[in-house]
């Protein structure tokens, strides 16, 4: 288990976004997006949320939702070519 605060992330949507808003934002704003289920491991964290969870890919950036119990979900982007390649291999295209 990692810690999200150890990653150099960019906030795409601020804390307090809903999981639905995050999914719709990824689908509308990124040409490449993939779907995973809750429990998918990304950056050593288990992603939670209402399935299907949308992950965006923008070159080497991975865009993903992250939920904190007090604040809700926010959408983060982290640059990591290896993790982007792993998402392409292990996630699915269909909801």
């Amino acid at each position: 288990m990692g810690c999200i605060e150890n990653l150099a992330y960019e906030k795409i949507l601020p804390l307090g976004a809903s999981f639905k808003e995050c999914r719709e934002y990824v689908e509308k704003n990124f040409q490449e997006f993939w779907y995973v289920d809750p429990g998918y491991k990304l950056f050593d964290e288990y992603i939670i949320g209402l399935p299907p969870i949308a992950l965006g890919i923008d070159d080497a950036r991975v865009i993903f939702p992250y939920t904190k119990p007090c604040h809700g979900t926010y959408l983060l982007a982290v640059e990591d070519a290896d993790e982007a390649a792993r998402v392409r291999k292990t996630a699915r295209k269909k909801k």
Partner: protein
Amino acid sequence: MTPSSPVPAKALIVLGCPEVPSQQALALFIAWNLRLQGTSVHAAGNPAVLNLLKVSDPEKRYLPEMQVLEKCIEEIVEKKRDADLCIVFAHNDAGISYAATMRHLLPASRLVVIIFGKEPEALAALVDFPCETIVEKAVHNPMQLKRKINGVFGWAA
């Protein structure tokens, strides 16, 4: 449990952010009832809510086993932990996300989502996965929600 439901061997209580105080009181109440019937109870939440419960239960009479939520999810994903009954407290969108996650990770478990806080009906509308819900406006006063919980689990008032 309802009269027809078997007593679960293992229950998991998933707690949300502790900003709504009725949650902690009800978590201890539920744990006490479950343990009375012989169910092993485990609770998961963020460090703040776990500390509140540890202070209220210094001898661990009600909640002997607690861990941070991320670690709990990790153990469930890695098949090191499961539960026959999962109870999720949800008073915000994040709580519903955690409940949906538990539905996916524990597909065979009975899932009961307790939806409370100031606007529980709006939150309840977000639930589109199989589970039982207990919905009640409750912030400081847990009594009405407690009555509904008693009804769902078949516990004496």
